[in-house]
């Protein structure tokens, strides 16, 4: 298996381990840790067995405590906050009147929130489509061995390694209407007659932030898809080639079907990641001009911390986002489980 050497099929590796250890994939193997008696022959004295189960709980406890403290508590308090009229006057006392689903209703009636939802959909779909197709193209390209491919592949990882604030700032300069290098190039090649107001027009600002986000996302897609391609056995391709299948037919009938589990992982993880993108947009446009790049994340931040101090509304906006991400997270977990079963 070449995949194991590559170490690129992170998701695949991670899932394979519990399966190899005999646990039930995709579930918490609580029974293995001492609660389900009888699935294992008794060993040693009763004291020792009790000590064993204490030790087993001891191993799980830190994780449970960690999850409860850093994930469950903030999630629950954010949920509670979204049902409160929590404004500036509540910050000191921490007390705020409960107002039921009022925050959610107000959000749904808020035209800016509507714009933000539409923008988020455009941003996510646009990012995924281009990141994925370009990432897949590069993965297929690098799957053919050629000189310097290793070096080039590592160079392509650079967008992934840069801090998002740096990337956003550089793209803001590149896309500057009057002094940006992109307009300079386009003008000198006579591709456009006048400078394109990339981040300064309601019709092109979204394209501007998408350009940046797609650039950031390509390496992630390429790396995971490349790993998936490497794990497709060569003999299947050879057999198909012997049967007279052309390159395109092999890609359609062998590569794509065998790559499907990896594709599902890449797309769901990409979606969960893209839906919560904040830094890139904040650095480039702050949601402007005139809310044309305002997403649910940036609007939620603005409601809470942008001077409005409507923490209840901000919490409600982010909760809606969490629900969407959660739905896709479940979808992701299911798809990886079926992948393990398929193996």
């Amino acid at each position, binding site marked *: 298996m070449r995949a194991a050497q590559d170490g690129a099929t992170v998701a695949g590796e991670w899932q394979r381990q519990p399966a190899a250890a005999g646990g039930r994939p995709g579930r918490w193997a609580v029974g293995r840790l001492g609660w389900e008696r009888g699935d294992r022959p008794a060993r040693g004295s009763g004291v020792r067995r009790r000590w064993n189960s204490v030790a087993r709980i001891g191993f799980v406890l830190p994780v449970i405590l960690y999850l409860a403290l850093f994930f469950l508590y903030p999630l629950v308090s954010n949920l509670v906050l979204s049902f409160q009229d929590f404004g*500036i*006057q509540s*910050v*000191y*006392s*921490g007390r705020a009147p409960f107002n039921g689903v009022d925050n959610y209703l*107000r959000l749904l009636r*808020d035209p*800016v929130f509507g714009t933000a939802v539409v923008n988020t959909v455009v941003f996510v779909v646009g990012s995924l489509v281009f990141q994925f197709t370009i990432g897949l193209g590069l993965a297929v390209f690098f799957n053919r061995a050629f000189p310097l491919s290793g070096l080039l592949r590592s160079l392509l990882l650079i967008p992934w390694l840069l801090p998002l604030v740096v990337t956003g700032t550089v793209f*803001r300069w590149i896309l*500057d*209407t*009057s*002094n940006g290098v992109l307009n300079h190039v386009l003008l000198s090649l006579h591709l456009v007659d006048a*400078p394109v*107001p990339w*981040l*300064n*027009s*309601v019709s092109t600002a979204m394209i501007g932030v998408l350009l940046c986000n797609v650039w950031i996302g390509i390496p992630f897609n390429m790396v995971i898809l490349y790993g998936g391609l490497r794990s497709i056995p060569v003999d299947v391709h050879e057999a198909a080639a012997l049967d007279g299948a052309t390159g395109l037919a092999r890609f359609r009938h062998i590569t794509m079907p065998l790559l499907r589990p990896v594709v599902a992982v890449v797309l769901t993880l990409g979606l969960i990641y893209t839906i919560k993108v904040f830094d890139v947009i904040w650095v*480039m*446009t*702050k*949601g*402007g*001009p*005139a*809310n*044309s790049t305002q997403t649910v994340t940036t609007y939620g931040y*603005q409601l809470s*911390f*942008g*001077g*409005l*101090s409507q923490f209840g509304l901000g919490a409600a906006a982010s909760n809606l986002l969490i629900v969407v991400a959660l739905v896709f997270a479940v979808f992701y977990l299911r798809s990886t489980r079926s992948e393990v079963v398929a193996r």
Partner: protein
Amino acid sequence: MRKLALIAATVMLLTAGCGGASAGDDSTLTEMDYYNTDPLLTALPQLLDTCGKQAGVTIKRQVVPDLRTKVLQLVGSHDVPDLVLLDNPDLQQIAATGALSELGLATDGLYPNVVEAGRYQGKLYGVAPGVNALALYYNTKLFAAAGVAPPKTWDDLKAAAARLTTGNQHGIGFAVPATEEGSFQFEAFFLSAGGSLSSLDSPQSVAALQLLTDLVGSGSAPKDVLTWTQANLEEQFANGALAMMVNGPWQLPQLAKAGMTDFAIAPIPVPAGGTPSSALGGEVWAAGNGPRSAKATEVVKCLTAKDNSLSWSKLTNYVPSNEQAAHQLAETDPRFRSFVDEIADAKGRTATLGVNYPKYSQALWTAVQSALAGRATPAAALEAAQKQATGQ
């Protein structure tokens, strides 16, 4: 073993870091501000030291770039710093939480509107050591070459800007990004036209937005004004890409650093019959309501006294909040003339709207961006803004 020691050291470091804000006894005051660049980065501690000594305390300074959010977070955990240098439009909101201490200080000699900007519900919570306003910087070399006089009215401004727009050079730049900065810059035109913040869609306001829309629409101002900050304006002005810019006095050291000397400063141009005005900018000293608030008030009194107000203003290139000191400055340094002239009539952003100002401001910068990006006419954009600000 070594690993354990390392972990222990890390934990100690972390806890020491967390305890920093609240550490100390009655003789140590905590202070927060957002001045993370020189000259203030090094000069402010000296000023704090002087005033701390007078009050018999030591002051521990902390620089926090996103100060407003940090202070709100500390308000939530009842751990407000003893002294905090807040941006003046944020003062009312922080005061509304009840976490600030009322300052029993005399404010004789200060500009009345500056004192007003430090009040919340009639009580004094913040005092400004210095203030600022926006005015029109213009490149004297370019103006002389084109034979244009510094514009006084909006019509002059349009004509001059069009005249000075050639190739890569734009006639005028202002900064209207989707932040408070955008509102602050627009308010200079808006207030000079006689607009009032409580009615965003007044005819004066529409006229002011129409002016900016025309400037961008005709190409006299770059489209980049929608994403540029005031610091970006300074860079563009310094390298000659802008013949005029709307900016504050705090840019003077940056321009000097860039070697830009061929400029002068005029009051904000006005429509026929208007007076140059601006929103009042600058920070105010406030004291937390902790057990050391009396000492903190003493320090604020020292920091805002006439002499210290003057040295603060010299460091920040602000106008002293003390009226007499401000006039002295205008006489000795002509670059400050326009700023000083505008201060007396500058409007505190929270003066009429109080804690609701951020809501109006967000609606306002959105309207400005809508009009400049061609999404709506100035009248329609401002009408929507008024609805957004007063609704909910």
